């Protein structure tokens, strides 16, 4: 039965991983019809308006306010996390992992402290070198043709883009 409910929880989690993440506006913000600076303004949101994030494109977030239609706001005008509530940072695939590894949803508000494998500054300083782990990397390495074919499967095409001028001593693409 426990297994079944875990399975059910997995199935019910939204497929769109940004779907439903709570956020709020940091400042008074124009809600635009499209993700462009000169797009039509459909509403103006006051500072600290609670919204749900639907998706992101470029520097814009598609959001839905509690009342009113959805639209786009500049990414930097919102903060992820509900108003007042301490942000738990359970974004992306975190709840999937939490359900599968601990048998409970990340949305229950229960923070599981046991079994967390940390990586503190002290851990870094006192680590015992693991050369065997480094050797394992060779088994996973991709060849140039594998990388190119994987990119082309996702329809990724390479192009020339210059480094941003302010990057110190950064040259152009070779």
């Amino acid at each position, binding site marked *: 039965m426990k297994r079944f409910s875990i399975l059910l929880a*997995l199935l019910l989690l939204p497929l769109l*991983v940004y779907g439903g993440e709570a956020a709020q506006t940091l400042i008074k913000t124009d809600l635009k019809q499209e993700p462009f600076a000169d797009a039509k303004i459909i509403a103006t949101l006051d500072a600290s308006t609670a919204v749900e994030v639907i998706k*992101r*494109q*470029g*520097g*814009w977030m598609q959001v839905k306010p509690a009342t009113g239609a959805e639209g786009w706001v500049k*990414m*930097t005008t919102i*903060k*992820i*996390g509900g108003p007042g509530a301490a942000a*738990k*940072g359970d*974004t*992306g*695939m*975190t709840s*999937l*992992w939490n*359900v599968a590894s*601990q048998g409970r949803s990340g949305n229950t508000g229960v923070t599981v402290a046991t079994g*967390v*494998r*940390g*990586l503190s*500054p002290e*851990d*870094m*300083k006192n*680590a015992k*070198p*693991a*050369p065997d*782990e*480094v050797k*394992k*990397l*060779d*088994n*996973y*390495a*991709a060849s*140039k043709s*594998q*990388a*190119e074919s*994987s990119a082309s*499967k*996702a329809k*990724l095409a*390479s192009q020339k*883009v210059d*480094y*941003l001028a*302010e*990057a*110190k001593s950064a*040259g152009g*693409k070779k």
Partner: protein
Amino acid sequence: MMTRFITALTILLLGMGTVQAFNLDINKLIDAGKSASDLKPVDEKGEAEIGNTAAAGILGAAPLVKDEKLQAYINQVGLWLALQTERPDLPWRFGVMDSDSVNAFAAPGGYVFITRGLLLRMHSEAELAGVLAHEISHVLKRHHLNAIQKNAQVGLVTNLMSAFSNDNGTLTGEAKKKLISVSSELYARGLDKDDEFEADKMGVVIAARAGYDPYGLPAVLQTLEAMNAQDSSLALMFKTHPTPQKRLELLDGLMTGTMDRYASQLLVADRFEKVVGTYARSGH
């Protein structure tokens, strides 16, 4: 300049009796007068050996996730990004680390690591690409290599130079031990803030070159900003990097007007959800 140096040295010598104090302070003096770029460059063989040692230290703190598909995926994405850079032919190696902490690392010679904790908080391959491209940039600019050389004592640097200047040279036990300690201290303390900002600026461009929406990295920074700064899984990241808010502000300013034209490039969210989601559902 020289007179000043000698005067300073004399004052130090008079002020401090012990040889050890002298050793430490002459390094500081040399460092003060020299920028990292003045250091005699280590060749690629030396960079590979230093990187191998640094990588062993990082993976000593947390090993690789045992999931071949996930590791193969991150290597394909990572190498595709590296191919868009000025060092496409390094032996690039990417890995997901078995840790719930939120972080990513680079080591000289082409090593790039990301923790499960950070990977799972992402929403698309464009976000993953942004973080990997940031780490790739540290390798391109030899940030860790320069810092290790700068922090190492003169003796080690000389030893490294001579070890790598002849064909069959390897590090002596003592030099290797010293290298391990200098390197692990660097990863516990972090790079200079300017190196981090530079890697951010380069990372968004490399992601754009590879066909991704370049706002993936800013999106990750926004996710980090939303997390509780007291969260122990963030301790190392927050200690070793400028605040996400500061990084986001700088990127936002730089990208507006320059990177907007690439903003409608691909997120590749479907493939990311499939591969990383499958791993997440496995729960180990």
